[in-house]
């Protein structure tokens, strides 16, 4: 890195010479208007809004997004080059560019969904001429169908090509492009195909005007009337940072927040569009089963039934996929009091996972940026962690090699296939031998289709011993938001333990797990938010809040602690999860020494210091791997998520997700034929 002195307006700064002028200005706190430039996309330089004056340079304004500092010439006596961002030339240039952009932009702000949060609107206010001198006809452009998520109003397009660059570079689909030239250039998809990507919703945020807007959100709210809550997404284990916009007690939309360590500034379509699933299929009152039928009942009745059954026999707790740590903690305490077991619903390992060095690893999501070799072991990041997948693609573009052991599913980058069994993994490990340069620059991403396989404990041990020996990185990709939290609190995943639990327990307290298969004879209490499979097979239903309706802590797949905040009230008689569990505890005679959420969190942090620091990952001591055994198992790995859009109860309730699933199925059928 070579530094260079550059004078911006009147102050001299010292910058890395590889920065562009716009980046340097950003660092020194000067905002340059822009449309096409975006930090995480390639540079196009076609909107011309970021023009600045380079003193002593060419006698015309320069596009600051496309000019590197090292290309600036020093002054005649060797003084540092000067950039002016507010000179008369710059102001006139901006006015001129703004006028050109507005020539063909319709004046339909009152009926445009982008109104109020539109870059073009804002920048026309700040830098524009104030009035139009244009009296001729404006051009109109045909709209096209991008699928059930993104609505197009192409007449509003200013051809910044951010959407084209995003879909090609980040999402990894080569469908969008800009055809034609000049006045007739259009943003299109090839043969007007709909987009097939899990990240397509991000082009709505990227579009600086109202050309690409959200279809499900269309014409329902204005940005200034929305209540904004910054929270955490639970649709996968990545823990994407989101902002929930609600109006009254309805969630109107979900948008990403920037967090470079986790989701950069992207979120998956599932995280973004799942909100219509929160409104429907809700459990809004307690139900009890009477002669095979579920009938509504009161909380008083439901709680007494629950406590009566739990008092009689041993009770096991089953954690679902969307449960916050507070809920799990209250359940843990109650379980300790009752002396039962507690298990995690969606993971069946062949051995116990004894610590974070087993179920989290020593890697972080950001490590993917710096690692040369990425080995996917039984995971499909595209489905299980779409945003992490974009990160892997970024690494692949920058030259990383990706290897895959597992089911051959389409990803957004090329992979070197290793096979589909642990035996194939052993062959690969033997082939690579102890090539230190390879292994030290390697990250293992291990997924559930690996962990759920028979003899996964031996294979995991092998991976861990390589990590230990060569200081490689290792990260488990948990597809579920509650996984790491429940494992931290000691929920069992061992398949033998789980089978015993299902056989022997009289009462099963199910915390929103819809994949649970319960034998006959046991009494099932289902505490959850949606009327899905789990609720259907329950004997007693306790309606609870979903992830946007209560405060909660979630631990993401890399062990990062993040706080989710309450955006809206739960519907009907539904209550916050921890409150329900506390009420039952009291009925059973166990009175926790806390009353409210703060007290609960205090107790939680005392008991589990791993979960105490928000935003951070607490590194734990590495537990030494056992002696490595040869892997000989030829049992093929099975894909963990079959239908990406229908992977949890909130998605299954969502109409948008249903449409997407149907669209993808028909696309797959078309591809197959």
């Amino acid at each position, binding site marked *: 890195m070579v530094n260079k002195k550059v004078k911006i307006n009147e102050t001299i700064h010292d910058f890395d010479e590889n920065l562009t002028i716009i980046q340097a200005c950003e660092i020194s706190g000067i905002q340059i208007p822009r449309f096409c430039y975006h930090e995480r996309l390639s540079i196009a330089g076609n909107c011309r809004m970021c023009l600045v004056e380079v003193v002593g340079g060419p006698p015309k304004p320069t596009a600051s997004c496309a000019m590197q500092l090292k290309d600036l010439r020093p002054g005649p006596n060797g003084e540092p080059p000067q950039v002016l961002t507010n000179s008369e030339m710059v102001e006139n240039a901006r006015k001129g560019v703004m006028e050109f952009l507005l020539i063909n932009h319709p004046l339909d702000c009152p009926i445009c969904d982008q109104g109020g949060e539109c870059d073009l609107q804002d920048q026309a206010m700040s830098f524009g001429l104030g009035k139009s001198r244009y009296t001729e006809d404006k051009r109109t452009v045909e709209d096209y169908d991008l699928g059930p998520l993104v609505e197009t109003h192409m007449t509003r397009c200013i051809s910044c090509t951010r959407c084209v660059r995003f879909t090609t570079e980040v999402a990894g689909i*080569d*469908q*969008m*492009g*800009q*055809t*034609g*030239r000049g006045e*007739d250039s259009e943003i*299109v*998809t*090839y043969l007007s195909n709909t987009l097939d990507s899990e990240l397509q919703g991000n082009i709505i945020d990227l579009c600086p005007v109202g050309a690409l807007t959200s279809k499900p959100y269309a014409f329902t709210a204005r940005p200034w009337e929305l209540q904004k809550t910054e929270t955490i997404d639970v649709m996968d284990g990545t823990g994407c940072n989101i902002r929930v916009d609600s109006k009254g007690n309805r969630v109107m939309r979900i948008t990403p927040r920037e967090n470079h360590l986790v989701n950069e500034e992207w979120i998956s379509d599932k995280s973004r569009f799942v909100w219509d699933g929160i409104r429907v299929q809700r459990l809004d009152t307690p139900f009890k089963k009477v002669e095979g039928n579920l009938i509504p009942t009161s909380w008083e009745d439901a709680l007494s039934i629950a406590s009566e059954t739990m008092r009689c026999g041993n009770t096991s707790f089953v954690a679902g996929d969307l449960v916050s740590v507070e809920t799990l903690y209250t359940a843990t305490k109650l379980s300790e009091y009752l002396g039962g077991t507690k298990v995690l619903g969606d993971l069946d390992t062949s051995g116990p996972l004894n610590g974070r060095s087993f179920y989290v690893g020593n890697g972080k999501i950001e490590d993917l940026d710096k690692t040369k070799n990425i080995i996917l072991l039984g995971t499909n990041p595209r489905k299980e962690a779409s945003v992490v997948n974009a990160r892997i693609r970024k690494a692949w573009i920058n030259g990383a090699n990706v290897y895959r052991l597992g089911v051959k599913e389409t990803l957004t980058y090329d992979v070197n296939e290793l096979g589909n069994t642990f035996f194939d993994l052993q062959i690969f490990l033997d082939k690579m031998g102890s090539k230190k340069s390879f292994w030290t620059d390697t990250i293992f991403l291990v997924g559930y289709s690996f962990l759920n396989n028979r003899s996964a404990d031996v294979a995991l041990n092998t991976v861990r011993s390589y990590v230990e020996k060569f200081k490689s990185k290792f990260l488990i990709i948990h597809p579920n938001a509650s996984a790491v939290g429940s494992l931290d609190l000691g929920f069992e995943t061992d398949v033998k333990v789980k089978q015993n639990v299902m056989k022997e327990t009289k009462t099963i307290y199910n915390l929103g797990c819809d994949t649970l298969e319960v034998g006959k004879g046991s009494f099932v209490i289902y505490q959850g938010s949606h009327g899905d499979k789990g609720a259907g097979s329950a004997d007693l239903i306790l309606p609870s809040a979903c992830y946007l309706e209560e405060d909660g802590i979630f631990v993401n797949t890399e062990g990062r602690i993040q706080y989710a905040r309450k955006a809206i009230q739960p519907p009907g008689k539904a209550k916050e999860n921890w409150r329900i569990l506390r009420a039952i505890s009291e009925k059973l005679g166990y009175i926790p020494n806390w009353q409210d959420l703060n007290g609960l969190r205090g107790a939680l942090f005392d008991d589990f210091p791993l979960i105490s620091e928000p935003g951070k990952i607490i590194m734990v001591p590495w537990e030494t791997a056992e002696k490595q055994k040869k892997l000989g198992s030829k049992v093929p790995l099975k894909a963990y998520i079959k239908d990406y859009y229908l992977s949890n109860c909130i998605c299954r309730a969502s109409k948008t997700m249903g449409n997407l699933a149907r669209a993808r199925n028909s696309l797959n059928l078309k591809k197959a034929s």
Partner: protein
Amino acid sequence: MLRRLSAKQPEKFSFSKANLKWAKAQLKKYPKGRQASAVIPLLWKAQEQEGWVSKPAIEFVANFLDMPEIRVLEVATFYFMFHLKPVGSKAHFQVCGTTPCMLRGSEYLIDVCKTRINGKQHSLSSDGSMSWEEVECLGACANAPVVQIGSDYFEDLDKESFEKLISDVETDELLVPGSRSGRFSSEPSNMTRKYSRKKLSSENASVERFRG
């Protein structure tokens, strides 16, 4: 001009044997991984072969160069010299309409096109054998007005000679490219002095005598 793919498309496209050999040779011009650079020459070859660039041709080129179809479509729609609709099976007349040709009467040629071929450019004549378009400067201003068919230039045209050219195309006569006014190339059309080698040398001698 809004450029879209034609509504009518052929079933498939593939290069002829000779063209395929040529295309494979083209690929070797570029470093490994940069084959996409050959997209314009390949599209041009496809157009030479078929007369126009069809959707199967775009897909063939995309496949051949291992690049996304949309990127080839972007190139094909950007350059006006790629025809995205079928052109006349016998001839596609490209009438120069830029200033020098216009001053020398290209508007009359366009009128002829409109009456003899089709009222609209880029449209086929009734039997599908001919089509026409107005193009920008063909670079033969000294022989204005000019019409290009394929890679041949037909120069110094007027209404009559152009009508004859169209009739010749219709009746499959052999077309002779070049001037229609009797000029050999772009020498002055009303030559008052004819130079011979002898004359020139004597002129040079007189100049030298003057200098001396």
